[in-house]
């Protein structure tokens, strides 16, 4: 899965999580750029990402990620190993 495919899948997840069907994301975006991306929704996002990519994120990874590109890199790293 390349980074574009991962980004597309994250878009779907985020549209569902934030209940925003028209949401468009780009790699440099962070929580403050997306309406509704608060700390609570962030947990939903983490759980949904773990579920749909079938991966497990660690505590240190979760507290470090900020931007969409952080997520993409993290996921890419997890699924290639």
């Amino acid at each position, binding site marked *: 899965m390349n980074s574009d495919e991962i980004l597309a899948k994250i878009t779907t997840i985020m549209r*569902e999580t934030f209940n925003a069907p028209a949401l468009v994301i780009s790699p440099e975006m962070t929580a403050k750029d997306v309406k509704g991306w608060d700390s609570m929704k962030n947990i939903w996002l983490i759980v949904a990402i773990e579920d749909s990519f079938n991966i497990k994120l660690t505590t240190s990874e979760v*507290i470090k990620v900020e931007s969409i590109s952080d997520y993409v890199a993290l996921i890419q790293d997890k699924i290639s190993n």
Partner: protein
Amino acid sequence: MKEWSLKECSWLPEVPTNFRDQCVAIRSSTGDSASDLYRLAQHRLNSSQLNSLAATLSAVQKNSDSCQFKNYFRLGLVSNATTALFVPALRASALRYGICLDVVEAEFGQVMQEALDPDSPINRADLDAVLLALDYRGLPFPEFFEGFGRSDVVTTGNDEAVDYISMLRDKFSAGGKRAIIVQTLPAPPETLFGSYEYRLNATLRRQTEQFNSRLADISQDSAVVLLDVAGLANRVGLDQWHDPMQWNLAKLPFAQNLVPIYTDYIARLLGAIRGQSRKCLVLDLDNTIWGGVIGDDGVDGISVGQGNALSEAFLEIQRTALNLRSRGVVLAVCSKNEDATARLPFKHHPEMLIKEEHIAVFQANWIDKASNLETIAATLNIGLDALVLLDDNPAERAQVREALPQVAVPELPEDPSFYPRALLTAGYFEAVGYTADDQQRAEQYQANSQRSSLQSSSRNLDEFLQSLAMVAKVDRFNQQGRGRIVQLINKTNQFNLTTRRYTEAEVVAMEEDSSIFTLQVRLKDRFGDNGMISVVVCRTVGKQWNIDIWLMSCRVLKRRVEEFVLAQIVKHAREQGITTLQGEWIPSARNDLVKDHYANLGFTPLKEQDGSTFWQLEVEDYQPGTPPITIEQS
């Protein structure tokens, strides 16, 4: 086919592909949004879909005052952990049980403050129940390293935790007006000693277990309702349940991918509190309770009984149905078959556990299943929303769901060995109590349905009543009858002339008061014992009896029991020199049925006052009827 899974609620049908479009449509619809939401909630929704449905519900609540749900429930939520994440999912899950749920959350970590402050958000709110969603970290168990193995630690620790729960119950129950729902505690999976852990009292493994067992005791004699989260966590697996990363990250008390099943567990309990649990299990026959097709394979060809793995699987399905029946769930049959053919295994297969006598309504014909289910509900005089259909055929299941969304139809795994698990996990028969009455309910409903089939075969009502061979037993109030008398006085709504409620203490006082005449009536017929079915209380004023209570169980409506009861009252009145009976109908929301009760019995109207009507009968003018009821001599 995907594996059957508890956490994915596999008994629910798959989510329609246009789920999100349907949510949008409900928001902008002007139609019956409540039933659209109910219908959509019946699917296997994941967390984000539950959240979307909850958002749709919020929009509907905001935009439309006219949307009428079957039930409303207001729940307070108190926890030592983060609950905000599952609240929307809980509201959506409640829709599955026909409940429009509003949740009032206590502030995070403010359990004690909420309890002690009479003006706290929870104590201030108008609530039906409060859920104490505490886990082991929220209860005063002593830290193990503070003194493990000391026997006093375990005693003190548990007493403290139980006292704490009792205190919270007392503070939150608003003087007994609210139910308090308390969770059993899943143990943490980590052990310090390995197997030896179980021998040490002060370990959390033992502490939580002992706490749970004491909680069961508390809930026997108070307003506490148990939510068996420990049982759920054990089924999921404690390692799956507890996610230390999520706890550290946001104080989430259990892994968030389990939210759909956790909230369904709560919702089904709220449903049970609201009386929404289902009452009747309808069984398909071919390949559901036996293997094979009776019409093709014959009695010798179908598979059920000891001997091979598959036939034993069907035996287990039958055992499950019978166990449910002895719990009070009525059994019925709905099968596409010739009636005579369908009955063959019940009559002639030696290993069938279910017999014809266990089946209250037997519908085997070629009419569509939805119509047959309607007949079953009508015959038993229960709602369609009290039915569960167990059927191996996916097409039939889909058709029934489409035609009758109120009927629960579990999706089944391919392998019949797993049918009992699917059926019993779905939460259809959730209970918040279990009484002697429940144990007999299946038989009572069954007797009722036999009576009604007799009624349709009898040419007229009198003939039918004659054929019932009714025998009544009449007594003054006494200690043996007291429990049921109090229950009838406080529960009967329809056939109840005055709807006056009395406590047990007041009923005891009536037994001893010579100025009060009391009557309790039991009724048997050829189909069984109906138990106590009527209660009368008269207060003496001079030479007159004022009928303070006259009520009757609707189970024996239209059987001329009231005529029989009046004859009994008159007989005693004469013996005691009473000349006049005065009756009163106080209208309530539910007792229109007895508006003309006294007129029908030959009383003359006396007056109307504040909406109530008063009626009078001179004892010497009384003309006895001839209800076909004989009296049992005690």
